């Protein structure tokens, strides 16, 4: 196998705007961004509630969320598959092997990450912001929004981390998406397939894109931490 040749070919593919390659990248981005958009609001609400409110079962929920941080993504895939298969309880939705199923899977995978970050952020927030808002006559909702505004950088950091987790996830995406070319084939499943076919150039090109994403995320996080004054 010629590594240098494959790498050269990979960059040629990327730079020439190879349609198949860019479709895969676009599908990856689309699925992950929609999943994050769907998961973030409920995750932030839950994280806020866990940090601010005292209710029965709260501790169990916190432990559960922390445990779910390292939940195996293939198990998420397995559970979703069982739910979505034709004979499954949600079989009539006809979602298996569609982007919809992949979005569901990634939303479930990102949810605990987003929640844990929101929880930590709200817990670490200066309580005076909330108190001041209340004392100035803000409604509970308004006071909540003030607190969240105060910790927005930490919440956004959570979104970046969630993005990092789902954009590179292969198990669940392969199981419920089916790796269908042009429909549900995203960067990680394409890399797995190209490698198994022994076609390294496209795999390397996609790997480069994925690593650029990771680098971009960590640069963005660094900038955020600078701006948000996080320790």
């Amino acid at each position, binding site marked *: 196998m010629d590594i240098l040749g494959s790498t050269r070919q990979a960059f040629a593919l990327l730079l020439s705007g190879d349609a198949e390659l860019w479709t895969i990248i676009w599908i990856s981005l689309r699925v992950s961004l929609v999943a994050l958009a769907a998961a973030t609001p409920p995750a932030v609400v839950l994280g806020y509630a866990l940090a601010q409110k005292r209710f029965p079962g709260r501790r169990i929920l916190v432990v559960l969320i922390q445990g779910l941080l390292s939940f195996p993504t293939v198990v998420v895939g397995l559970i979703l598959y069982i739910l979505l298969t034709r004979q499954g309880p949600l079989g009539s939705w006809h979602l*298996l*092997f569609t982007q919809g199923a992949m979005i569901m899977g990634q939303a479930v995978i990102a949810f605990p990450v987003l929640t844990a970050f929101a929880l930590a952020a709200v817990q670490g927030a200066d309580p005076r912001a909330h108190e001041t808002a209340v004392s100035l006559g803000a409604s509970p909702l308004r006071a909540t929004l003030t607190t969240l505004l105060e910790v927005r950088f930490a919440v956004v950091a959570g979104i970046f981390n969630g993005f990092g987790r789902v954009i590179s996830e292969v198990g669940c995406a392969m199981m419920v998406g*089916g790796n*269908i*070319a*042009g429909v549900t084939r995203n960067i990680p499943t394409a890399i797995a397939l190209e490698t*198994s*076919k*022994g076609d390294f150039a496209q795999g390397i090109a996609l790997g480069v894109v994925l690593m650029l994403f990771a680098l971009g995320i960590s640069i963005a996080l660094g900038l955020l931490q600078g701006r948000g004054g996080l320790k």
Partner: protein
Amino acid sequence: MHHYISCLRSVCRIATALGLALLAQSLPAAELKLAATHTLVDSGLLNTLIPAFEARSGIKVRLAIGGTGQVIRLAANGDVDAVLSHVKAEEEKLVTSGAGLKRYAVAYNDFFIAGPPQDPARIRGIKDAVEVVRRIHDAKARFISRGDESGTHVKERELWRAAGLEPKWAGYLSAGAGMGSVLMMAGEMQAYTLCDRATFAAFRARTGLEMLAAGDPRLYNEYGVVAVNPARFPGINADTAAQFVSWLTSVEVQGLITSFRIGGQQVFFIPAKAR
């Protein structure tokens, strides 16, 4: 104190046992690295043949599974000792390029087009496979392609070429997966697919698909075995590979292959020239 010592002792004992187990694993027992195509594994045939070979020879078989394109490449790179696949031209190329020794026919069956019982493209009972893919194309019906350079995929492309059609419509899906996975997907999505008789039989109950169009001589599916050439790749297990090939083509194994049944049905046959 005493308690700790006895504890320590049992820890030592477990560590020794683990160490011995590891050692036994790494001892250079005779082994064979075999690359085989999805259909042979998904159908269950290799689950019968490999234990029989291991019991007979004492050789441990390490199996690499992939599409024909992939397993041929493994053999061409000397990453395995022998290869079992089902694209005769590719196997012969392996031999003529010097990477493989000699090709032996092992077994055959056939491909056919399977699909949902509703049969939206009305292909049931049509013998001409080219007419079948034309109807599927014209009906814009869902069709799942292996899309993985496997023997089945190669055969499917032959059909589109013979029909003079480009398989490009919204319902034509390229899965890049093994035969079993593709049958499961076709069952889920109520789609057509080209499949081999053995894997279809093994997955029939799970997919609910039906054999709709069979019998075209173009859909003949022959499996062959090639041992990798030790002159080209000195590091390989040439010995065990040679043993495997001569065992696989023996009358005894031909009996095993023809008596292999899925749901009471024979799904592999012995080619005349291998007899």
